[in-house]
């Protein structure tokens, strides 16, 4: 019997003594309640991920008398309504040239992995392959990280890698532009710019989406 009494069971024997002993315990329930309330509040209100951002530079406006630069390995991507993407390769040439090259035609593509992604990888194979080689070297510890960054930049800026021009009409959404820029980043295209469309290009586009 004495043992059980020590355990603080429900016996009423020697009640006065035990009552004193119990009073040292504090009821923690309200504190715990409050603790969990605060916990829930902070979990729900805290923002876990800081917003991500994409760094991008826009070109300074060229002097008015300057001709648009000749682009060798170029791809013009034209965005329009309903998330449509058109593109043409190389220089814009609406009439075709004397050597019998056909006039520029707009091709349609999409954001799938078989669409724009494939075209970009094909046209930018030089930079893509170079960077893949460099990445292997970094993995094998043959190359320092900083050197890798510099060489990757050089590969992207090389003449053989792709230059992309992004042009939009007035119905394209911001999302399309970001999607294209994102795709360019994924495909290691280092040279790209968002510029205005020329009037003949716009005419060709309106013809196409009619």
């Amino acid at each position: 019997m004495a043992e059980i009494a020590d355990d603080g069971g429900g016996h009423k024997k020697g009640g006065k003594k035990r009552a004193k002993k119990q009073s040292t315990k504090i009821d923690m329930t309200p504190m715990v309640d409050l603790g969990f309330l605060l916990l829930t509040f902070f979990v729900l209100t805290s923002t876990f991920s800081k917003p991500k951002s994409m760094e991008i530079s826009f070109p300074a406006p060229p002097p008015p008398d300057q001709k648009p630069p000749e682009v060798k390995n170029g791809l013009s991507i034209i965005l329009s309504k309903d998330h449509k993407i058109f593109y043409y390769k190389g220089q814009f040439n609406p009439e075709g040239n004397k050597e019998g090259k056909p006039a520029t035609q707009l091709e349609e593509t999409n954001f799938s992995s078989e669409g724009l992604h494939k075209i970009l990888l094909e046209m930018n194979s030089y930079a893509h392959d170079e960077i893949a080689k460099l990445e292997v070297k970094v993995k094998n510890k043959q190359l320092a990280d900083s050197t890798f960054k510099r060489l990757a930049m050089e590969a992207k800026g090389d003449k053989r890698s792709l230059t992309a021009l992004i042009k939009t009409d007035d119905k394209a959404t911001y999302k399309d532009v970001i999607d294209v820029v994102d795709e360019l980043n994924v495909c290691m295209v280092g040279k790209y710019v968002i510029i205005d469309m020329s009037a003949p290009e716009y005419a060709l586009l309106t013809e196409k989406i009619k």
Partner: protein
Amino acid sequence: MSKKPSKGGAPSLDMTPMVDLAFLLVTFFMLTASFRMAEPVVVDPPASHAEKTLPENTVLVSIDNNGRAFFGVANAEAKVATLLKMSDKYKVKFSAEEVKKFGGMSSFGVDIKDLPKYIDATEAERMKFQPQKGVPNDSLKNPQLRDWILYAAQETNGVYIRERDKAKAAGKDFVGEKPRYAIKADANAKYIYVKDVIKTFTDMKIYRFNLITSLEGGGSKPAEPGKNKN
């Protein structure tokens, strides 16, 4: 021989570890939480694979899907100084209390003439504030956005340089970051609206931006399968 009768007392768990953990988490979240000020408008940025986190020290222009521009400065000191300069230029008076309140506000999208009223409103009222047409950005008649950006750029750079020099004079390492220009546009906003804002920046010879995006895969991405037919 003398086993304790288990049915005697109420079954009680030792809650101490749980409570310890709960308070540990509370402390953690309290210390890490950074409170986001309520934005006057919902801007849902498009997703991308970009992994760079947005710098803290920014001059931000948000564009909602109707093309309204909202303007905000992260640094409170620079923000207040910008307001004072704008107040001078546009001859709109702000009381000392309004100026102070403005320092703690998030971005806003009202004409400067309505700004005193907007500042005086409570946070809940601001969401419904009329007319909230965005900061006017008419390069010829009413170039308020340009002026906001211009003064904010001067002020944030000023604050940055002053703090850097102060740290240098005290012989301490300077940890502040250079001010950046951020654009947060809604995914469904037409690109021409964004282009207008970017033109406002490039006219002032500011060419580098941080375009705010959300992380790919995080948000819902509707209409993706629809795009793939073709």
